[in-house]
């Protein structure tokens, strides 16, 4: 039987499987499936793992997630307060860095796997590895050096420091974030994660000017990827567009997979990536809250018609909002299974 991992491996190699790999990123939905609050759900690694496994059985897509919520990284670096909601993902409520003086006091954990804020993630990874390791790609979410400060001090203060602040604290913070990044990647790989989503909105020309990207963002991207190796890394800019930086990132880092924005021109992205890697075409999942079944099917077909010719293609979603109706998730996946069919035997 062809597994999700077989499909991913085939796509990376430019071969055909029974269908293209389909990544459906369902996080908060696991809590509803288990009938618990989001706060209770994310308090236990066993719950998150069980939620992921149930999602996989229910919908039949290919990947599972070890991500709880993005603020988890801030917790590993000292954040004490997370704001929970019944309707969506938890948020950092109190930043670790309030003033530039706090940067000197920021401590990178010596060992992430033994950090209390990682304990439940570790349990989740262990269960996922035991249950579906080698069969379904286990995804981890790693924020890049250049973007991590936004989680620690807020986007506003980070922009201020980056573009108009003193260079000393800025460089010190980047150096510490890079140290954390390297340790975090090692922790997730050690735990069994195969696919590492390298999240870097500051590596998109939607966030910073292209000149700035080339001078400042790209060297940090290179440094990040050189330090951990490109294996399993997926370049992603948090739904910001990446077509204009694709070639530079691929050439300078050797990253073999790029997760485009729904706002990117997929045909252009596919052409730019070409045979150099896996193109991940992403549906605008915010629209899934109101699109009809027919509209969903049309959009999935459009994406696959553009992305599948030439192979090396994966269909994916953003982080699917909780308010997307279950019927819409099913309609999207049914269309992806149907139009993404290849008829090959797999890797």
């Amino acid at each position, binding site marked *: 039987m062809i597994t999700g991992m077989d499909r991913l491996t085939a796509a990376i190699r430019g071969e055909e499987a029974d269908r293209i790999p389909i990544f459906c990123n369902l996080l908060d939905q696991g809590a509803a499936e288990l009938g618990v609050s989001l706060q209770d759900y994310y308090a236990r690694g066993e719950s998150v793992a069980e939620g992921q496994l149930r999602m996989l059985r229910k919908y039949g897509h290919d990947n599972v997630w070890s991500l709880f919520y993005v603020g988890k990284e801030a917790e590993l670096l000292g954040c004490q307060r997370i*704001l929970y*909601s019944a*309707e*969506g*993902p938890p*948020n*950092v*409520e109190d930043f670790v860095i309030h003033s530039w003086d706090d940067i000197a006091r920021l401590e990178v954990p010596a060992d992430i796997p033994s950090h209390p804020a990682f304990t439940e993630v570790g349990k989740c990874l262990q269960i996922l590895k035991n249950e579906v390791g080698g069969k379904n790609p286990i995804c981890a979410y790693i924020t890049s050096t250049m973007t991590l400060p936004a989680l620690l001090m*807020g*986007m*506003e203060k980070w*922009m*201020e420091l980056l*573009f*108009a602040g003193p260079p000393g604290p800025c460089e010190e913070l980047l150096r510490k974030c890079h140290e954390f990044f390297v340790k975090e990647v090692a922790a997730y790989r050690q735990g069994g994660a195969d696919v590492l989503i390298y999240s870097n909105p500051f590596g998109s*020309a*939607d*966030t*910073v*000017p*292209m000149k*700035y990207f080339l001078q400042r963002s790209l060297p940090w991207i290179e440094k990040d990827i050189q330090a951990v190796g490109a294996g399993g890394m997926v370049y992603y800019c948090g*739904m910001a567009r990446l077509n*204009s930086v694709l070639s530079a990132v691929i050439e300078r880092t050797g990253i073999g997979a790029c997760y485009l924005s*729904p*706002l990117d021109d997929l045909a252009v992205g596919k052409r730019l990536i070409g045979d150099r890697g896996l193109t991940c075409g992403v549906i*605008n999942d*915010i*629209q899934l*809250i*109101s699109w009809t079944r027919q509209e969903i099917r049309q959009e999935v077909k459009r994406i696959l018609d553009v992305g599948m010719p030439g192979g090396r293609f994966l269909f994916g979603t953003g982080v699917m*909002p*909780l*308010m997307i109706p279950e019927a819409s998730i099913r309609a999207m996946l049914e269309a992806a299974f149907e139009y993404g069919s290849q008829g090959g035997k797999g890797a």
Partner: protein
Amino acid sequence: MLARIIADYNEAVFDTDRERALQIVRDAERQGISPEDLVFKVVLPAMDAMVNALSDQFSVNLAQHFMTAQISDAVTAEMIPKFHQAPEVAGRVVIGTAYGDMHTLGKRMVIGCLRARMVEVTDLGVNVAAERFVEEALAHDARVIAISALMLHTATGELGCRKVRRLLHERGLEDRIKIMVGGAPFRFHDGLYRIVGADAWAPDAISAGKAMAELLQEVKK
């Protein structure tokens, strides 16, 4: 001379170079350009140029928006006390992030752009309850409640904009106070502002300044 100043200022703003932009304005003032001209003929046209660049599909990014808003706010704050007479207030607005939302960047940028357009802005901070939006709008005689939301669930939640709309309706205030929303989810879903009960939205802070000025004009009629 003004044309040169405008060109240099625009270049500094597009380069996200706050210090250079501020220096250009201060040098221009020393050379005899009036504070009024610096705000109305340099700062505001630079913001409009960015809106036009956006509609012309030029690449304008978040950092440029952020620095434009910051620079515009700083220049306006520095120049207004030097005006020969106090400028006419273009309108009053209360702004905050939606209930449950802690993200401040969009709000901060919009505030900068609004102040440069002579709009009086009251910043209600983050995670603002619907009742507070309405009470503060009444207390400040604001004609627009501006709600910023970065996440879909805070943009669409029952305790956010939808509740503000309900409260305005229940209290018969809908003709007097309008609602404007902004934030990432609205950029990914054109009709979302209507779904949550807002009167208007803008895809970015610079456009929000212009759209807000138009909305305030509409409420005045």
